[in-house]
Structure formats: C-alpha cells, structure tokens
C-alpha cells in the first residue's frame, strides 16, 4: 500500500483544502470500511486520507419541520437507534441495519455508501425514494445534486477533486407516505445484494399519488426506475404492483457474475419490487 498521510479536518473548509491539495490522490475518510479496504487492495494510490468525522456539519442529524438533514459521516447505528428517525424513516432503518454487521454499522454510514458509488449499494436506493438531495462542498462553494444523479458509474460519482459530500437532505414524509427497502442475498447478513429494490409511495386513500422505485445491483449505478411514475394515479393493487415489477425489470441492465446471473437478477427485481411496494403501502397506511 502506498503510504498516505492522515489529515483530521475540523471544518468543511479544512477538509476541502486538504482534498484540493492532493487532487485525485486524496479521499475523504468517514467510516473507512470501504476506503481503507480499497486503498489496501491497491484500487487507488493515495497520498492522503482526510478524516471528516470531526466536522460538525458532516455529523448533523436534524429532523426539522420540513426537512431531515443527515450528515455524510453519520454512521448507520445513529439512524436505527434514534426512535424519532426510525418512526419517520423506516426505509432508512431497513438499509442501515443490513449494511455489514454491527461492527460495520458502528462506522459506515449512508454518506460513505453513496460516495463509494457501488452499483450494489444498499443505501442509495432508499435515499432516492426519499427524494434526497446531496450537499457538496468544494473549492468554489457548495452545490446540490439530486441523489439519483450522484453516481455516474461503478465507483464513480459527480464528486470532483477537492469536493466533499457534506450532508444529505430529504423532505419529512407527509401523511400517507411509506417506503421500504429489501435486497436479496444468499446469506442472511454480511453479504452483497444480488438485487435490491427500494420503493416509496404517496397514498391518498387507495390511490397512489406518486411513487418512486430504485434498483440496486442491476446496472452500472443504482437506478431510479420509471416504474414509479407509471404507478402515479393508480390504485394500490396487486395487479398494478405486478405491472410495476415488470416495468422495473425493463429498466435493468444487469450482468452475470459470481454473485448472480442476468436472469436471476431480473427475476429478483420483479419479486422485490412487488414486495417493497406492498411494504411501502402498508407503512403508508400506518402513517395516516
């Protein structure tokens, strides 16, 4: 492993300055559960890792009147151990409690999951179906990017040299909103999704006003499927969920590899779309 420096940033400005100084030879360090493993495996040659866990903004967990702010360095456990967040964002609990084991969840968070930009990321779909926005700081100030536009390819994102993901923001769910995430893995834990689906619905009675469906492990990036739009205005019925499942499958472009085949992944997207829609609707009804 190429020897790198450890920089503990105390502010966003310090982090941005340190990242900008080293360009592509520096990465932010949050939970470290991906970045350290990849640095060791020779994925990057780094001169510096910039620890962003000591920055107030990246640690923010704030349930506002209309917005939930989640700092980029907040580890998974802070989501599922917070009763208020768990009640409002069960879909985030779905994902935070299956990313790695308890050890990983002590350190890894949704921000790092996002920046790692893995096609199989469990954390990105749930953010997409919650209409999350990424706040990115850089040498030229901050900018915002919709989470579905964040990943640009396997391991690649819109984050440029010197830039830092500071937080994710998402609207507080209105009444009648429900969301769920489910993945399929051969083991019950400590595994990578062969396929994963996050779904959210905004219900009005039994009518779906709007829906979002996001897919993992079936394309070069997590995918915001068009299947959600097709559900808008329709009733929450098994038939419509099946149609949505078919539409979701049509949006996939999976590969066959050691974790699963194209056919298996497409099939699983259908199953998981249906299951997560059912769960999302259930939660939407509870949230009334």
């Amino acid at each position, binding site marked *: 492993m190429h020897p790198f420096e450890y920089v503990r940033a105390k502010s966003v400005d310090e982090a941005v300055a340190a990242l900008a100084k080293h360009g592509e030879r520096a990465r932010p360090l949050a939970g470290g559960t991906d970045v350290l493993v990849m*640095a060791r495996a020779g994925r990057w040659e780094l001169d510096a890792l910039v620890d962003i866990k000591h920055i107030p903004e990246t640690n923010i967990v704030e349930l506002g009147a209309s917005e939930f702010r989640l700092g980029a360095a907040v580890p998974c456990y802070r989501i599922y151990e917070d009763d208020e967040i768990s009640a409002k964002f069960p879909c985030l609990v779905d994902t935070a409690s299956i990313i790695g084991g308890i050890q990983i969840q002590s350190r890894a968070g949704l921000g790092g999951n996002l920046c790692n930009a893995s096609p199989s990321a469990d954390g990105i779909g749930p953010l997409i179906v919650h209409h999350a926005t990424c706040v990115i700081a850089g040498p030229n100030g901050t900018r915002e990017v919709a989470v579905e536009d964040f990943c640009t390819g396997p391991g690649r994102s819109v984050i440029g040299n010197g830039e830092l993901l500071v937080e994710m923001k998402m609207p507080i769910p209105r009444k009648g909103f429900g969301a769920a995430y489910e993945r399929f893995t051969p083991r019950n834990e400590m595994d990578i999704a062969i396929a994963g689906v996050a779904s959210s619905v905004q219900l009005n009675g039994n009518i779906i006003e709007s829906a979002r469906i996001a897919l993992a492990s079936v394309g070069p990036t997590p995918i915001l499927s068009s299947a959600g739009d097709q559900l808008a205005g329709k009733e929450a019925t098994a038939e419509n969920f099946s149609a949505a499942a078919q539409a979701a499958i049509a949006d996939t472009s999976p590969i066959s590899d050691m974790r699963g085949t194209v056919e298996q992944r497409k099939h699983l997207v259908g199953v998981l779309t249906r299951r997560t829609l059912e769960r999302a609707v259930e939660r939407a009804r509870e949230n009334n």
Partner: protein
Amino acid sequence: MVEKVRVRATLNGEPVDFLVAPYTSLLDTLRDELGLTGTKEGCNDGNCGACTVNMDGRIVDSCCVLGAEIDGSTVETIEGMAEPGKLHLLQQTFLEEAALQCGICTPGFLVSAKALLEKEPHPSETRIRFWLSGNLCRCTGYDKIVKAVQKAAESA
C-alpha cells in the same frame, strides 16, 4: 516517507501516548506497536470480526480503522475484559459451555457479545445470532457460542 503521527488515547482504562505511521490500521497498531496481540486478524477487510474491539462504546472491526483515528478515543480490547484475577462472566460461560475450539475468533466474539449484553441484557436467540453475524467462526457452528451468551445473560 510520511511521518508518524502522535496518538493519545485511553486503552483498556490506561492512557497511552504513541507514534504510529498514519496508514497503519488500528489492528496492526494494537498488535505490532502496542504489543496487544489478543486482537486477531482473519481477513483484514471487515468481513470476519476477529479483530473486533470496542471504540468509544461501539464495536468496530479494527482492521477498518486507522491507528491514528483513535486519538482522543477510548478503546477496549480483549486484554481489558477480565479484571485482575477474575474473568468477565462471558469469558467464564464461554469456557463452561465449550464455546471455543481453535480460539482464534474467540476474542472478537467476546468483545462483540459484551457490547450486546451491556446494551441489551436479555436478548433473544435471534437477536444474539443477528448481533454476532459480523463475527465468523468456522469451528463451532455457533451453537455453543450462542448458548454461552444466553447463559451469561441469564446469570447476570
């Protein structure tokens, strides 16, 4: 050549102050720099839990933490689990229930299980199995490990 960094932390209740290369993992820092070899390496990529330590009240895989990151933190390892002359209850039940065979995963399991019982004194079997799923054991089939944790929970 990058310079070593100074780290001041609390390790098993004692203050420590040392220099470490910034790219060194906490696992290697404990084992190679601080002489605490009770924390084991199984995979070095966060998938087996043999290197589990407690950092600021949470269990972490020490292979996925830098030694430099513990500056200002409190870290507990397997070496800090027993009191002088007295095993921790879990250490005792692991022995009584034959919950170890080769023993390489044992320190990690004990550190994990201790954190669970401190948080949830009476977990269900399912909860124990879920909590410990980040710790791999290849010898026991987990049965006796789960029973040892249950026994400790019952006798606490």
